[in-house]
């Protein structure tokens, strides 16, 4: 009985190893053969042709420096805000439990920069969507809005949900 059990367990281990090995080999091979291009997702997801991809590539290359510039501005503003908050005050609250005016100003500037950046980003998405066939363009725009603005909606809805919860009690 023991011998049979050992043989059976050995066969089971061997089977698992064979399955697992071929699974990981297949997965790895597949991931390695896919192109590492930034726009490859657009081509696959929205079934775009070479002409459309070429137009999108131009738009993409035009947008990237603007995006980088805005990112740099936002990063600089965040740094200014941190300085305004100062090391002695916790989350910008001073001894009188008010946010200091400089920090308030920096927060407003940061929000304005983010809004400007998001507006520029949405404009880019609209331009890209217009280079696609209408149906794909609509889907692309909806997807991009969900990915970029949906995050805030999710946070806000979760917060309002927790507020409701608290009010019920």
């Amino acid at each position, binding site marked *: 009985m023991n011998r049979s059990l050992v043989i059976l367990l050995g066969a089971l281990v061997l089977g698992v190893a064979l399955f*697992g090995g071929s*699974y990981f080999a*297949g997965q790895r091979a597949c*991931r390695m053969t*896919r192109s590492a291009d*930034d726009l490859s*997702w657009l081509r696959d997801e929205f079934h775009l042709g070479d002409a459309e991809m070429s137009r999108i590539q131009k738009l993409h290359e035009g947008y990237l420096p603007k995006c980088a510039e805005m990112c740099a501005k936002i990063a600089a503003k965040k740094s200014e805000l941190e300085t305004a908050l100062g090391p002695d005050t916790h989350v910008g609250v001073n001894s009188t439990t008010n946010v200091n005016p400089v920090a308030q100003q920096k927060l407003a500037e940061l929000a304005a920069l983010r809004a400007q950046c998001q507006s520029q980003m949405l404009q*880019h998405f609209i331009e890209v969507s217009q280079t696609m066939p209408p149906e794909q363009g609509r889907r692309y725009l909806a997807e991009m809005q969900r990915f970029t603005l949906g995050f805030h909606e999710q946070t806000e809805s979760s917060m309002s949900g927790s507020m409701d919860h608290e009010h019920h009690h």
Partner: protein
Amino acid sequence: MNKEKENINPDPGFAEARDPKLSALLRESRVSPALLPRFREGVWRRIEEAAAPARSPGGIAWLDALVTLVLRPRFALATATVLIVAGALLGVRNGNQMAHQDAQARYLAVVAPNLLR
């Protein structure tokens, strides 16, 4: 010389066959021992046991049967092939999905960095 050597060890059966009297005497002189009680029954029982399929002492015959099946080369080869093919197909499918997600994350990271979201 050779003929002399052959005569030194004569065949006893040959001598018996040549001499019927000697042969009859030898047959009478052979003692056939009495069989043990139930000897014949015991022999048949042993033959039946040897012919019957072996049973494991623990009584888990199905385990032995399974091992016998697993150890068959054709079965082992077929199972290994099925496992490899199924594993590779699932891996490729999963790899495709992961590559798609990676590509999507890469695009989003470029056009909408986390800083902006």
